[in-house]
């Protein structure tokens, strides 16, 4: 089986975010870019399945400008075989999905993995849009994946429980925590090898933005924390009941 892992390039979680002069995007100065954490887990599981011979090739794809190549190289260093980049600054989730769909129309993949959301726009819709555009089946909130021959065993989280699905390829799987225990870290050898692995760039398909950021602003700073004496901790319950009225 051949797996495509869709990779989003996002600011490191611990990065301080500042809003840019246009008020609609963030200031990219000084930002450390990383693989979106859920995509990193997806990649890890794909590589684990390749280790045990269930998968023949792991390809990573990103829709983004040249800047994102460092993130794709990291994915190659972690163990992906090839990388694809659609050379455009995506305007919204639709533009990401339509461009990923184009890659998949040009080359057949058995399994397409997307992280459940990206830690920048927190849209959590690219996987769904992609499956819709391609008219492929999708299983979302996936927390476990095994491959037995031509069949995929997929564990999916639902509110208050889990489901076990069996599916044939091709399929879009939107994955979350649990799909892999911890993200795989590139080895020194992997970093060396990544330099010579193929990273192909393609031109985008044109699309009208379906959504647009009208404005970004920083949330109001929180008021001071009201401290309750540890000797009188029970008083907190009274405050929550009488003052905050939340219990």
């Amino acid at each position, binding site marked *: 089986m051949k797996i495509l892992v869709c990779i989003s390039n996002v600011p490191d979680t611990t990065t301080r975010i500042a809003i840019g002069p246009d008020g609609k995007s963030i200031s990219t100065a000084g930002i450390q870019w990383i693989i979106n954490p859920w995509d990193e887990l997806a990649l890890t599981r794909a590589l684990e399945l390749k280790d045990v011979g269930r998968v023949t090739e792991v390809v990573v794809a990103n829709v983004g400008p040249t800047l994102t190549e460092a993130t794709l190289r990291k994915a190659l260093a972690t163990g992906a075989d090839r990388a694809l980049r659609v050379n455009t600054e995506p305007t919204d989730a639709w533009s990401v999905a339509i461009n990923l769909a184009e890659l998949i129309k040009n080359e057949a993949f058995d399994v397409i993995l997307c992280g459940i959301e990206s*830690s920048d726009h927190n*849209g959590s819709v690219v996987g769904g849009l992609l499956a819709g555009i391609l008219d492929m089946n999708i299983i979302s*909130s996936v927390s476990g994946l095994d491959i037995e021959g031509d069949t995929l065993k997929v564990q999916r989280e639902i509110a208050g429980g889990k489901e076990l699905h069996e599916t044939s390829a091709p399929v879009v799987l939107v994955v979350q925590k649990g799909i892999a225990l*911890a993200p795989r870290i590139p080895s020194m050898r992997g970093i060396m090898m990544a330099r010579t692995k193929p990273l192909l760039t393609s031109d985008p398909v044109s699309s009208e933005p379906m959504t647009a950021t009208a404005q970004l602003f920083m949330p109001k700073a*929180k008021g001071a924390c009201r401290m309750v004496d540890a000797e009188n901790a029970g008083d907190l319950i009274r405050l929550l009941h009488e003052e905050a009225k939340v219990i």
Partner: protein
Amino acid sequence: MSILVYTENREGKFKKQSFELVSYAHALAQLAGREVIALSVGEVADDELKQLGEYGASRIIAIDYSGHLESRNFSKLIHHWVGALGPDIVLFADNNTGKSLAGGVAARLKAGVVSGVSGLPISMEPFILSKMVYTGKVNAQIQINTHHKVVLLAGNSFGVHTNPVTSIIEHHNIVAELASPSSELLSTEMQKGKILLSEAEVVVSGGRGMKGPENWGPIEELAGLLGAATACTRPVSDEGWRPHTEHVGQTGKVINPNIYFAFGISGAIQHVAGVSRSKVIVAVNKDPEAAIFSVADYGIVGDVNQALPQLIAAAKTLKDNA
């Protein structure tokens, strides 16, 4: 024009989020001058369907179907009804189900879609919604440019409000053209009797400061008294002290309860990203410098093992006097 709401049920009973979603649709309909139509799929009795009218749905489309529909076909089914009923706004709960369907519906409609929405639109023309981005660090106003608009409402963000209206229930079979299924649901395993983290109004959570899984008794006791769900931080689930389904934070669940209790939680940025939308945050930590106090509304500097019994006693008194 109308607003179509997908109201999910489990074993014939609507979920709280479905009532919240209809309440939201009703408020939106008031702003936009639209009718609220609820779409239910599965075996749901008329008495249960009628309840949707209590929250503002004037038309209830019930698709009587007892099997499992894979997400692709489920999206096709909803898409079919959007075509038949002509709504311009389609609402889903922002949960595992909504996330698996909304994209497929939006793609087929060529509609703009916004998830994690926490309130009514700030403008109808253009249609602009508020949500948090950059994992809770930034507020965004997102405009949908397309005629059809697909919106996913964050759980417990609007509340359940009764707005009784006269409602008509229409039963239908599946008439949409579906694909032959490529997957099969083999089994479902549900936790019994637990309050769902995604729907909980009160959440009691513990971090590494709890020292070990054996110390979770008081957290569960307090949660029981307050009708709360229990949660934990990533290190706690990674250590296997608690199941990973309880992990709240950036890579776990993002929640927004009315009140979040953080016991022995330092307040790492990844954790705060998952809980910062809570209306009230209460922190108990022995380190007065812990980052959690900078996002908390109420705090106690002290040992969790000493604070918890006092809180439990006070919660018991409150419950007895209620």
